[in-house]
Each structure stands twice: as structure tokens, then as C-alpha cells.
């Protein structure tokens, strides 16, 4: 892992976000280094998804700043499209384009946003689809795929632009239990390959296996952060303990 002296891939300084009167993020500080996998855990509504959406500039933050490789991407006059070309987000509900084949879903961004030639984009897409077990699904429409296949296709879509940072927003929450494993396997593979990732998840066992660091979010703040073994087994905060005991009761750790 890179030392603290190096410029972090992603840094959040006191990020605040509110929707109307509802405060969702109340001063989030977070540092993610290159090749690091950070898992955000916490109860529903604690701000995990909002945090990821703010990083991807899908939501405008109210206060604080977000830095990508040391550059403030929330500053005025920043080219949001240029920033988004360097990262990708995968959503809970896949959000594939239903009117496009899997191959077109996957090649749309490289072709239109990155100016890659179709033949080149498709060759790369087919290669990636093959790597994630979707070689025979390239020409199908999303509706013909299972949930797990759709989510893997969505991950491939995010990967085709070679992101420097991959954001995963509860990517297994909308899946039938028996389909969760195949998607987690894909993410594990990405972690092994050194992809820098921030993921919001309810899969504690998975967080323990794959994360370099686990952050517990509570009421819009990072309440506790550390190696998974410490945070998940021996949390210092009472709130974290309560949350984890509920998770254990539900049989998810």
C-alpha cells in the first residue's frame, strides 16, 4: 500500500450534502490510495450511496471538497465530463440501457466519450465480456439476462473505460441470493488485479475478505475506520457494535 506521503487517489475533506432539510453527509473525511479497496458499511440511509454519487459528481456537494489525484474536482469550472471519464460507478439496479444490446451498452462510452473506434472498442469489450463469463451474451438485450449477468455486464461497462477509480453502490443488493456469489467473484478478481475501489455493501463477509479498509458510516459521518479484522471483529465505537450485532443476528456475517 502507498504511504501517506503519496498523493491519494481519492480524498474527501469535510464533505457536506443535504437534500432540502435532510442532512445526508455531515463532514465526511476519507482517503483512498491507489490499489486500495475501501468498503463503506452502515445502516440504510447513512449516506453510503450519496457519498458515492457525490464522488462521481452526480450530486453537487454543499460544502467541503473532493480531490482526485490531488486535484479538486468539486471546484468551480471543472469539466465534469473529463472527471467522469476517469472513474466509473456501478449501481445497485444495474441501469443498463434496455434498448441496446450488451455489446452496445459496453461500447457506448468508449466510442462516444473516449473516441475509440468501434472495431477497437468491440474487440476489447468482447475480451472483457469473455473474462467475466458473458462471451455468449454480447448480442443479447439486457432483459434476456439474469440479474447476476446484468450486473456483471454493468461492471464490464464500467471497466471498458479503464477507470482509475471504480465505485460500486450495493451492487449485490438487488440480486437473488443465489446470484450474489458470481458478482462478488468478479469484484474479488478486480481487487486482486489492483483496481482502486470504493464500495458500499451490506455483505460483511465479503467486506472482510476483500477490503483493505472498512469505514463505518453513521448519520453522515465516518464514525470508525480501519482494517476489516479490527472494525468488524473489535469495533471501538458503540454504534458500530450495535450495527454489527444486528447484522450478525440477521446471519450476514
Amino acid at each position, binding site marked *: 500500500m502507498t504511504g501517506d506521503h503519496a498523493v491519494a487517489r481519492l480524498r474527501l475533506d469535510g464533505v457536506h450534502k443535504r437534500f432540502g432539510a435532510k442532512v445526508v453527509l455531515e463532514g465526511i473525511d476519507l482517503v483512498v490510495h491507489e490499489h486500495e479497496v475501501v468498503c463503506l458499511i452502515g445502516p440504510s440511509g447513512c449516506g453510503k450511496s450519496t457519498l458515492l454519487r457525490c464522488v462521481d459528481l452526480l450530486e453537487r456537494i454543499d460544502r467541503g471538497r473532493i480531490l482526485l489525484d490531488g486535484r479538486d474536482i468539486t471546484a468551480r469550472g471543472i469539466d465534469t*465530463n473529463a472527471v*467522469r471519464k476517469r472513474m466509473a460507478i456501478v449501481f445497485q439496479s444495474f441501469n443498463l440501457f434496455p434498448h441496446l444490446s450488451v455489446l452496445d451498452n459496453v461500447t457506448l462510452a468508449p466510442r462516444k466519450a473516449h473516441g475509440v473506434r468501434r472495431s477497437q472498442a468491440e474487440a476489447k469489450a468482447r475480451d472483457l465480456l469473455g473474462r467475466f463469463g458473458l462471451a455468449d451474451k454480447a448480442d443479447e438485450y439486457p432483459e434476456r439476462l439474469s440479474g447476476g449477468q446484468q450486473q456483471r455486464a454493468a461492471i464490464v461497462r464500467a471497466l471498458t473505460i479503464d477507470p482509475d477509480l471504480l465505485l460500486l453502490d450495493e451492487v449485490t443488493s438487488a440480486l437473488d441470493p443465489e446470484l450474489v456469489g458470481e458478482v462478488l467473484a468478479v469484484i474479488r478478481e478486480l481487487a486482486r488485479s489492483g483496481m482502486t475501489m470504493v464500495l458500499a455493501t451490506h455483505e460483511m463477509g465479503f467486506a472482510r475478505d476483500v477490503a483493505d479498509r472498512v469505514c463505518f458510516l453513521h448519520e453522515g459521518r465516518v464514525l470508525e475506520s480501519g482494517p476489516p479484522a479490527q472494525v468488524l471483529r473489535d469495533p471501538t465505537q458503540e454504534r458500530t457494535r450495535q450495527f454489527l450485532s444486528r447484522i450478525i443476528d440477521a446471519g450476514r456475517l
Partner: protein
Amino acid sequence: MRGWLAEEGAKGASVAALSTVAVFGLAVWAVLRSENWDAVQSQFFNPENFAEAWPDVLQGFWLDLRMFAIAQIAILVFALLVAVVRSLRGPAFLPVRLLAVLYIDLFRGVPLILAILLFGFGVPALDLPGVPRSPLFWGVTTLVLSYSAYTAEVYRSGIDSVPESQRSSARSLGLTQWQSLRYAVLPQAVRNVVPALLNGLVSLQKDVALVSVLGVREAVREAQIYTSLTFNYTSYVAATVLFLLISVPAARFADWYSARDRARRSQMAA
């Protein structure tokens, strides 16, 4: 179970046939036994007059069809443009957004026939250099402007029906606002409103006849001319037949398409 259903189906069909014959028979009988039927028949349904008026009315109708085709294409394109402008986001686009709203309000608020009269007689009267003076031109233009206002709202409802997550998804991939619309939102939006667009098409096919108020010699105008010369109204029936020949199949097609579209969607949802 199946036998019972089949029996019910057969019974249903015979009931439908019987009631149809009864209702239509009654209507025809009522018309035919009217005291004035003979006069009406010679005034409106005279075969000789029909044959005499037919060539001119048909020629007028050919103009109707051409006006319809040109206007329809222009409407589909222009309305989409207006809808896109109206759905642009960001403060920089406020002026064009306002303009689009103003245009839509204006043209939806004025009766079509009034708009045709105003533009058809008003604009040529201004005698502006380089501006066409033909009533035909202004008639079709008004049809396009008026129908586009409605059609833009149809498109907009289609755009609104595409989930916001589709737009975020496209934006998150680095596509610009325009690219997100073009490649992710609009194809889905248009597909969602094809049935509504087809309805508009059926309606426009008849409304082109309104251009006759400007003296444009389309089918209704030709029929009017024939009537004023002969005091016989059969030419109107000839025009009616021509419009029905196109609009009924078009309406059937629109219904068929909508039904197929519904079936496809429910299949997708399942």
C-alpha cells in the same frame, strides 16, 4: 373447463352478431323511412354527380396527401427539437427553455383554424421581402407549428417516462448531457410514445383539410367549388370517402401497433 369457455365464446359471438345487425339495421331503416330521404339521396348520394365531381376531388386529395406527408415529417423533427430544448438542464439554457414553453402555450392555446387564418392571410399581407406569400405554404407551416406544439409535449412525456437513473448512468460513463439524451434517453423516450405519435398522425391526416379556408384547392375546397356550381352536395361525400380510405386503415394500424406494444411490455415486465 375449455369446453365451457369455447361454448361461452361461441355464444358471445352469436350475441355480438345479432346485436350488431339489429343496431345497424335499425339505423338504416330509420334513415330510409325518413320523409326527406329521396331529396337527401339526390342531393348527397347522387351517382352521376359523384362521378362528375370525383376527378377534381381526387386531384385535391392528392394535394392533401402531399401536404400531410410533408407536414408530418416536419412535425416529427421540429417537435423533437422543441422537446429536447425544453428538457435541457442548467441555468444557461433558461432562455431557450422559456422560449419553448411560450411557443407551446401559444400554439396549443389557439384554435387550429384560427391560427391558419391568421398566418395564411396575415403573413402574406405583411409583404415582407423574401417571405413566401403562398397560402399553401403558410397553411402547411401553420399545421406544422400547431401540431408540433402538441407533439413536443408528447415527446416530453416520453422523455419524462425514462427513469432518471438512465440519465445518471449515461452521465457517469462520461457522456455529455447531449450524448446522454441522444444515445440513452431519446431512443427509449420515442419508443414509449410511438402509439401517441400514431394518433397524432391519424388526426393530422384529416386536419390538412382545414387549409381549404385559405382557398387552397385540396379535396374539401374542390368539393365546395363543385357544390357552389351545381347545388349538389355529393362531392362532399366523395371527399369523405377519400379521407376515410386513408384514415380508417391508419387508425386500425395505430390500434394494432399499440396493442402489440402493450403485449411486448407486459412480456418484458414478466
